[in-house]
């Protein structure tokens, strides 16, 4: 029904109204893009931005409250943690680790998951059976138990955390892609492409994949948040990043024991997680709207 909306040439009469509307509609996305950018800049320029050395302990500042509370100090705006380290600086440096873990795990997992899921859903037969069994075996393990087991086996370390999380994470995009592929492969346009003599690779990559990306993107953005939280869960179980490195997850997890006495220790990194994840989602939604007119009604 919207096949008339093909053009983007601005008409003269409604420029003002359109701008107003566009501004209103995009403000949220713009803010989100800015938030994401701020976080990215923070990760790059952490030494310049952070007010303090994130690992400088000062036991006299142990559990110092945020600046606006009694006993606070504007030099340590968000207060200090259990070792008197500046929470703001640790959040700024912690963004590096959390974003790194989130992005690397999801990129790895989604890449592998798409390949495996496409292959399983498209070829079916023994390919599907083999991939299905591997997926079943991995899914048969509860996620955390698997991660704990891997971490216990391989020992602590950032790389091992990424592996322990990605090892099973790919299964999720794989399942989604497989299911969607199964549904799409029977559709007429795919059959048409096949009839035209297109190769399997072409069909999977050019005909099927673009049509199933939207659920994959939805699932991946959600999972990225989940990965950051899973890292926090590993920290909760004592298998997170190594000290004195801060990741948001480990900060939330370490601070949870203080939650009754010093809520700020885990609340601010927790809010940082929420803010970043929220911003990534809103921004990606905005970009998708702009680039995929199907969604921009």
């Amino acid at each position, binding site marked *: 029904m919207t096949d008339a909306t093909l053009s983007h040439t601005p008409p003269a009469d409604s420029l003002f109204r359109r701008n107003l509307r566009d501004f209103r509609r995009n403000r949220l996305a713009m803010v989100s893009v800015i938030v994401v950018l701020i976080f990215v800049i923070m990760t790059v320029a952490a030494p310049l931005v952070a007010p303090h050395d994130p690992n400088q302990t000062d*036991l006299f500042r142990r559990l110092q409250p945020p600046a606006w509370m009694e006993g606070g100090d504007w030099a340590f705006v968000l207060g200090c943690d259990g070792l008197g380290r500046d929470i703001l600086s640790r959040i700024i440096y912690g963004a590096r680790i959390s974003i790194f873990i989130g992005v690397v795990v999801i990129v790895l997992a989604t890449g592998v998951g798409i390949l495996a899921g496409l292959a399983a859903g498209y070829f079916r037969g023994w390919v599907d059976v083999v991939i299905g069994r591997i997926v079943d075996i991995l899914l048969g393990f509860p996620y955390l138990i698997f991660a704990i087991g891997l971490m216990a086996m391989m020992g602590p370390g950032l790389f091992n955390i990424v592996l322990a999380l990605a090892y099973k994470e790919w299964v999720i995009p794989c399942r989604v892609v497989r299911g969607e592929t199964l549904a799409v492969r029977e559709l007429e346009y795919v059959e048409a492409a096949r009839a035209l003599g297109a190769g399997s690779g072409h069909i999977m990559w050019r005909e099927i994949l673009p049509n199933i990306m939207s659920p994959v993107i939805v699932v991946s953005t959600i999972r990225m948040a989940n990965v950051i939280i899973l890292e926090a869960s590993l920290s909760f179980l004592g298998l997170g990043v190594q000290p004195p490195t801060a990741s948001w997850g480990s900060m939330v997890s370490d601070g949870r024991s203080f939650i009754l006495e*010093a809520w700020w220790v885990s609340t601010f990194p927790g809010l940082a997680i929420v803010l970043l994840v929220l911003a990534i989602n809103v921004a990606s939604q905005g970009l998708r709207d702009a680039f995929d007119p199907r969604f921009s009604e």
Partner: protein
Amino acid sequence: MNALPRLLLATALATSPALMPAAVAAEDLIIGFTLDADTLDPANHRKRETETVIRNIYDGLLTRDPDMRVVPEIAESMTQVSPTIYDFKIRSGIKFHDGTDMTAEDVKFSLDRVTVEGAMGDGQTSPRQGLMGPVASVEIVDGDTVRITLKEPWPILPAMLPNQQIVSKAFVEANGTAGMATMTNGTGPFKLGEWRKGDAIILQRFDDYYGGAPDIEPVGAACVDRAIFKIIPESASRVAALLAGDVHIINELPTFSIAQVKANAGTDVMTVNGTRSFFLAMNMQGEVFDDLKVRQAAAHAIDKNLIIDRILDGTAARIEGILSPDAFGASELPAVAYDPEKAKALLAEAGYPDGIAITMDTEGAFKDTAEAIASMLTNAGIRTTVAVGESAQLTEKWRTAGKPKSGDMYFSSWGNGSLDPFDIFTPTHKTNDRGNSAGYANPALDTLLDSAAIEMDVDKRAAMYREAELMINADQPYVYLWVPQDIYGVSKKLSGWKPSADSRINLHDACIN
């Protein structure tokens, strides 16, 4: 769904001091406890928390009072006949929970069950056998006297006996070791009501209780109708349960929660000196810590008082040797002063003018303290990275019993529930012993420890341990840190209960008002 306002509200509330106490049925005493019991069989476990629960159901020949003195319980008296023979006269009129009388036969059976190989049935030996040392035999010498004969002198037998409890021979024979795991028939102040596995252990007062050790007042049946161990592993939740009035006692109160529990109207904090010594093991087989000067530098780098004051909230006692101030044979030792400049100078003397870089292993639970220590070491030229590992892995890495080990430094501890030096000194300092993480080897000390272990003269024995403490104080295989107190949060409705240094929670005398 709309979680943000709720979250903010909760956060705001979390900071408000007004926390009302709530009503609990007056006759129930509830303990917020870290771990469930593994089993209720007194002879078939190796865990302190399990023993804490079992000790309220089963009594032992001997017990400890809150000040850690060993006093008779089921035994009426103890006589040491020779260095290797002890006689115990059994109190009469003690009844098991099922109403049957307890006899010397039951005592012998209970001790045999622990000490004799294969006595648990199915060819199994009690995992508690090691706690009974060199016991050769247990005999009934006349109707009500039980004699324990040792293979060699073992002066800490009385200190170790409170760890063993008396079971009913007939009951064990009827139900087997398998049945003992979940069914109980003890002589203690409480009998088992219901065990909701992983959730709670509900104990009921045993009305025919003989009264317990006469040396520990008051004597008689337990005060409360029911005592409930409620399992809450997460410390913040345990504190919350106390503040909410759901429980009356919680163990392992975190130091940072002390202020809040004290500030809350209905709750208070109780502490007792602990028995676990914390230290930094330095790998003397490694490249840097084989040098005494480097080890001394590490010792001078650490401001123990500051950590005790700021992180442990003053709830720990500083040590200069391995022994807790409360332990047998503990004495005043030369203190290592906090002096980072001296540490740097010592490093330079040892050939490291630019300092050294090391890694310190520790468990997740001690991450905070370890990081504080690491930053102090770093300030003094020992650039320290903390590596958090799992306890099982670290044990394997550091407690090698003489096999070569990797690693530089290990922030760890050793418990000493008996407060007898033998239990802590020998394993951590004797050459190639189980807990000798530093890889310390001193033949003179080995000889001294061996003779002290079997010395029967109390004063001589204390002097020997004093000498040993001076030796290790000089050699500094470890940086000896502190002995933390055990901290409990209690409801103000609770009376008659005192925490005990061996971490037991004896509920016999506890009342709820």
